[in-house]
């Protein structure tokens, strides 16, 4: 029974998973493959089914239909304590009646690993909490408890480590620190991490692959850069960062691009960056990709231009200024301008034109319904 301390990360595969609870469907249909050693993030708003997915993998829930494989072994019917999986819970769930050291040694003792206390101490050293080994969990701060929970899971060298919004309860500064630390630990131990979060920055910062979940299904999956640069649905474009979306009928199209007419402005998108090439489509662009002009610039086929519009709100966020521009018969457009110190100063009420490169446009597969999560 005593397993070797060093194990390798393993593949995780979910096949055709559906999970129903009395009265609602938490997961519609889910197919997912996480390669060994990868840092995989499941990103989505609360209630999208991401935590349920995690609990299915941990064995704390069982799927209504579908199968779960860990390293080619079907674990669908396996009890949680028999799965080579450990979880860092959102609430940490450190046993309040045990010392920190005993908490960390718990899994090792259950598996009858030799010398559990020494290994538990090593794990506490890794998260730099060895000096608190004899304390009780309730004597520790949130950040410390989070690290103990991480050590308690990692010390078992599971094939798969599940993280259920483990940084949710920490303040911003500590969260950033822990993100760096967590990523470093993952690189060092080479385990497969499945991280569930609703924080898009956290997911993009840490994960090799991000899957964006909404209403019980995966909307889009890919590397963070790819997802951000080329979202395929309205939900992804709004949930991962911010987007300005314009809707119109496809009018003209050239060999490489298609264009829509929005209130008299011709807005183009390269064909390879559009999901749909005819009918009514949505074209989006990121607020930081756009620039202002106080005078109408000469148009150029590589640039999209809308305006004039009126600046109705300016928000200073430190590194950038966020401008909200009301463009008649189009609506509100957001533009971020880097705080370089030398940029022209725009004021509330000023008339501006907005332009961005056609290459930075993206065409989405669906149309905005108006109630997407921002």
């Amino acid at each position: 029974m005593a397993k070797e301390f060093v194990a390798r990360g393993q593949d995780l595969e979910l096949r055709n998973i559906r999970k129903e609870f009395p009265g609602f469907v938490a997961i519609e249909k889910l197919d997912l493959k996480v390669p060994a050693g990868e840092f995989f993030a499941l990103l989505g708003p609360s209630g999208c089914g991401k935590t349920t997915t995690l609990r299915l993998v941990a064995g704390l829930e069982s799927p209504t239909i579908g199968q779960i494989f860990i390293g080619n072994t079907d674990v669908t019917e396996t009890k949680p304590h028999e799965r080579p999986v450990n979880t860092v819970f959102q609430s940490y769930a450190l046993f309040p009646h045990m010392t920190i050291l005993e908490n960390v040694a718990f899994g090792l003792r259950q598996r009858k690993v030799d010398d559990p206390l020494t290994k538990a101490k090593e794990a506490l050293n890794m998260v730099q909490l060895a000096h608190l080994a004899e304390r009780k969990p309730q004597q520790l701060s949130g950040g410390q408890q989070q690290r103990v929970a991480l050590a308690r899971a990692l010390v078992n060298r599971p094939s798969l480590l599940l993280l259920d919004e483990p940084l949710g309860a920490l303040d911003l500064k500590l969260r950033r620190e822990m993100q760096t630390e967590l990523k470093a630990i993952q690189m060092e131990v080479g385990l497969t991490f499945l991280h569930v979060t609703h924080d898009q920055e956290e997911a993009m910062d840490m994960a090799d692959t991000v899957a964006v979940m909404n209403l019980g299904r995966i909307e889009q999956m890919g590397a963070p850069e790819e997802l951000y640069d080329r979202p395929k649905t309205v939900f992804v474009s709004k949930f991962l960062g911010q987007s300005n979306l314009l809707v119109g009928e496809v009018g003209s199209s050239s060999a490489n691009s298609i264009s829509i007419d929005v209130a008299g402005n011709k807005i183009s998108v390269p064909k390879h960056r559009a999901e749909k090439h005819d009918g009514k489509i949505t074209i989006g662009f990121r607020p930081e990709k756009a620039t202002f002009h106080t005078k109408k610039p000469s148009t150029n086929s590589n640039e999209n231009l809308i305006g004039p519009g009126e600046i109705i709100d300016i928000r200073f966020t430190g590194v950038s200024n966020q401008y909200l521009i009301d463009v008649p018969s189009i609506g509100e457009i957001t533009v971020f301008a880097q705080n370089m110190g030398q940029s022209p100063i725009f004021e509330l009420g000023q008339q501006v034109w907005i332009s961005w490169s056609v290459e930075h446009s993206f065409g989405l597969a669906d149309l905005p319904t108006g109630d997407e999560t921002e």
Partner: protein
Amino acid sequence: MAFAAFGSSVKVEAKPTKSGKVVIALLAPGLAYLGAFFLTPLIALIMVSLEVPDPAGGYAEYVPGFEIANYGYVISEYFPHIMRSFSYALMATVLALVISYPLAYFIGVKARPWPLLQKLMLTLVIAPFFISFLLRTLAWKQIFSNESWIVTTLQQWGVLGETQYVVGSSFMVVFGLTYNFIPFMTLPLYTSLERLDLRYLEAGADLYASPAKVFRKVTLPLSMPGVISGTLLTFIPIAGDYINASGDFLGSPETAMMGNAIEANYLNINDYPSASALSVLLMGVILLLVTWYVKKSGTEDLL
């Protein structure tokens, strides 16, 4: 790490800010009550337990003295009663715990999704209290009476001998004690299990502990406050109980406990010093046992 060093900072106790007079005024009724109805009788009891027979007086007349030998006398005379008191109390407490724990676990944990069922089951646990426990105990005596079909059937099956009966046996007394005190065990257990955070159990299962191990390592330790208060609330009153073991109810002279000996000494043979010595003894032993038990279970901070 820098933020690790602040964990053990000095605890600042909040200083009482109210003036001393107000505190005394608020405490006075409680202190007066304790003085009049606890301390005074206790001292009186200890004094009576040391009294000696009046050399000039007649039957059941005693004068103040310092007769420690009274204690030696009751210990030797009533040793079987003392042993019975504590062994019955131990058995009934353990039985009540074994019966109550699954019941409380079901009501407090398994029935959480159905609050109505929880309330109904709790009501059923408490409902017997609406009928006097003397009546209920007598009812059991009736059920297990010598002519009842239970006893005749047991005799036919050879479980009981021709002249063996249930009423008057140690079994019957422990049965009655367990029955009468089960709610005192179930309710504290329920209160602590009802607050049990199931996420700890999930964490245990996630860390390779089988359901049995999760129970032993997580559920049971976390419900210890309920176990401790439940066992104290049953053990202490059972050790001093004299109804169940009395010959008028479920017992016989062979099952008499300390409470019955105290009753006999005080009301029948008017040996007040012996009755008082037995009372003091009962109290002292319970105090010692409870202190040892609480220390041993490492839960001083829970009381």
